């Protein structure tokens, strides 16, 4: 029932939404067996109530429109829109904040503030208090440690319930750090800085409360499944040629 509008970095959102790994990987590889027939590719995925697009911030008003439609239909659905800190420099996001608050729409804006927009650190592109961009529109903002998995879950549940109950839009502003490169291997950052952040990354921290052997087994299983999927898609493609 609920809707997710994702961005250019939406693979994790898709898997969390319940999407299957194999058609996702096939889509990224441009294979016809992908979720969108290999047409959409990495950044343009649509499946059920999941929509992603590659224009930063561009999905904000679209997501608000979906929320308006669902509100009119009385479906009770909430729209969750994922944004990065970089997208907050796009004016269209402010337009969407304004309309979402003006019409009290059932939408949750999730900002994954990971410190970098492609190669540019936040300090070189944003003035003022980035997390409070929605405050002047009267949108309640929960700023939290984005590396705390359970804390994020609790805050997200609370925010979704509030907006579902007719409370209008909410913003979850999650402070985190981007461990990987923007897209390719062209990462100019200091490896030591990345390593420091890797120590407190969400998955590393979440492991602390779990059985280490079990975690390792899960990691191995996932790595082997992904390798197998990629192999299968490659083999099928070679066989088809």
């Amino acid at each position, binding site marked *: 029932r609920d*809707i997710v509008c994702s961005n250019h970095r939406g693979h994790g959102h898709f898997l969390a939404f319940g999407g299957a790994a194999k058609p996702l990987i096939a889509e990224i590889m441009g294979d016809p067996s*992908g*979720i*969108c*027939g*290999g*047409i*959409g590719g990495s950044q*343009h*995925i*649509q499946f059920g109530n999941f*929509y992603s*697009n590659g*224009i930063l911030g*561009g*999905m*904000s*008003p*679209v*997501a*608000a*429109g*979906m*929320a*308006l*439609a*669902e509100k*009119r*239909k009385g479906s009770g659905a909430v729209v969750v829109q994922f944004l990065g800190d970089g997208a907050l420099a796009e*004016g*269209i996001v402010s*337009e*969407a904040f*304004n*309309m979402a608050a*003006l019409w009290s729409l059932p939408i949750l804006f999730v900002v994954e503030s990971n410190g970098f927009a492609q190669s540019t650190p936040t300090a070189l592109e944003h003035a003022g208090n980035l997390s409070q961009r929605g405050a002047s529109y009267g949108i309640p903002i929960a700023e939290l440690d984005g590396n705390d998995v359970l804390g994020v879950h609790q805050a997200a549940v609370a925010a979704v319930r509030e907006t579902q109950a007719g409370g209008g839009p909410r913003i979850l502003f999650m402070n985190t750090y981007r461990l990987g490169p923007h897209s390719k291997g062209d990462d100019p950052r200091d490896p030591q800085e990345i390593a420091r952040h890797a120590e407190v990354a969400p998955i590393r921290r979440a492991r602390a409360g779990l059985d280490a052997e079990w975690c390792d087994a899960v990691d191995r299983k996932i790595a082997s499944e992904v390798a197998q999927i990629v192999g299968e898609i490659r083999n099928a493609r070679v066989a088809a040629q």
Partner: protein
Amino acid sequence: MNAPVTTPITYAKALNAALIAMMREDERVHFLGEDILDPYGGAFKISKGLSTAYPDRVITTPISEAGFTGLATGMALRGLRPIVEIMFGDFLAIAADQIVNHMAKFVTMYGRTIEVPIVVRTPMGGGRGYGATHSQSLEKLFFGTPNLMVVAPSHAHDPGRLLRDAVALARPVLYIEHKMLYPESLLESGGSLTVETLSGDPFPTVLMKNFSRGAADVLIVAYGGMSRLLAPLARQMADEEINLAIVLPSCLSPLAVDPILPLAAECGRVLVVEEGTSGFDWGAEVAAQIYAGAYRRLKAPIARLASRPEII
């Protein structure tokens, strides 16, 4: 064309009546734009009476053309039928990302065809002294955009019917109205002028002629607000015994030249007229398609008449 009516309906009134009818007939239809509520009723009064009759489905928006165009796209993806009014066509540039990279892209970007039922209406053109940023004909920026139809009725079309057809099509349509046509009565056959519809599905091409015997001396291809200038020209030329055939497609992009080709072949002399600036214009596409389909029959190179490529 339509049966004669006692009181000729204006272009603006036809649009207004179509909007009211669509709101009445289909609860999915919503109307969004700036300053569209009664008693103001929109900058050009096209939405007069709409918010009084259907207050829940007429949404007056902030001055956020990109924002509410994207909003309407989201509504369309979730089953509603939004009609968006952009107050001046010049402001389409503000909403261009939402139109090109969102609205039109969604139709086939995800590997299958998705229904995106949205119509964006806007007035273009000069003639009212509004100057450089409120008088342009910017539709050419959107010609050739995949999955976006650009439709522009002249006053020899029924703009109300075309608007209804555009909404019924359930795909992104950019609907261009010339602001000087709003007060004009819809054009029908009369005097030396005949008006007939050549092809009708989904958007008709209209043929105006100022002669009943013989062949056309010149075939003029034009669209939208040009009909306001070409109809009196045709009457004037009739007095001088110059036979004009004026063909007015209403779907500008993608352009189906089929109804025009036999006329071009028969006449052999073609002039394309448009109000937008010259160069990379609609006339270039019309000419290219006519050359491809009828070049052996042409008696002269195709001529193109457009505005100088300067600010208004």
